[in-house]
């Protein structure tokens, strides 16, 4: 578990705080799936909640709004990691509660 905690932290720290072409604010908003303007909001909501429903149009709309492919790459990665990390945290908390209640 300790190794996974560290590995997860390394992924999150790199994508949110390291160098990137999208701003740190954009990356954090995508990670949190909160506070993004359209059309990014629609794209990242789909990435987080039902990624297999992302369409070519969702991505084209974000490109048309002026984002580069590298910025889209970074922002989508942040959206995917953010949702997966939240699920992981909820599940670990549920396990902790189950273990405590015996």
């Amino acid at each position, binding site marked *: *578990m300790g*190794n*996974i905690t560290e*590995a*997860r932290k*390394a*992924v999150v720290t*790199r*994508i949110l705080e*390291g160098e*990137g072409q999208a701003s740190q604010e954009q990356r954090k908003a995508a990670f949190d799936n909160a506070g993004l303007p359209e059309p990014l909001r629609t*794209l990242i909501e*789909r*990435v*987080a*909640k039902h*990624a*297999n429903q*992302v369409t*070519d149009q969702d*991505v084209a709309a974000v490109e048309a709004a002026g984002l580069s*492919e*590298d910025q*889209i*790459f*970074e922002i*989508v*990665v942040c*959206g*995917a*990691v953010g*949702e*997966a*990390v*939240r*699920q*992981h945290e*909820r*599940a*670990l908390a*549920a*396990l902790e*509660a*189950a*273990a405590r*209640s015996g």
Partner: protein
Amino acid sequence: MRLSILDSGHAFGPKVMFAMIRLFSGQRVVDAVKLVMYRPDFYGDPMKRLTHEAMRGPSAWSVGDRELMAAYVSKVNGTEFCIKAHSAVAGRAYQDGARVSATLADLDTAPIGEPLRATLRMLGKLAREHTVDAGDMRAVLAAGASRAQIEDALAVGLAFNVTDRLADAFRFAVPGPKAFDAGAKFLLARGYR
């Protein structure tokens, strides 16, 4: 692949590697590899370390069990590339492809142990509903999985809840069975590093 940079925007080194893989294996490099090789310091390198730890690090679960978890989570997420890729690895690891297909077809009747069945059920609920509660976890513990095993399973879920989303968002191409078989051999021999 939806972004052209992920398809063909790699640095010189990875491009040479892709050409060599194609030459020696006769298979095109799959999109999962292209993703982790694009600007690898941003995502690929740290994510490969996480995935390798989850899938090949020390655990009471076998490699086959963890690959089956990856395939099962991918099935719930509806990610065709990852279902096929990790079904192939699990089938090869178990030397029993029928066990994998039976599990994906009907978890309740699959020929697997109760701790694994309960763990897969919980991972499926987490992927589908984005949360689980203490009662779900008590059911897994009651089926005989240890707390450490549940934590290890959740690490697999973490890795594939990221990877599945990116496979779908970037629309990974789904190749034929030969490519997945070659990929499965590679992942069993080398892992995810």
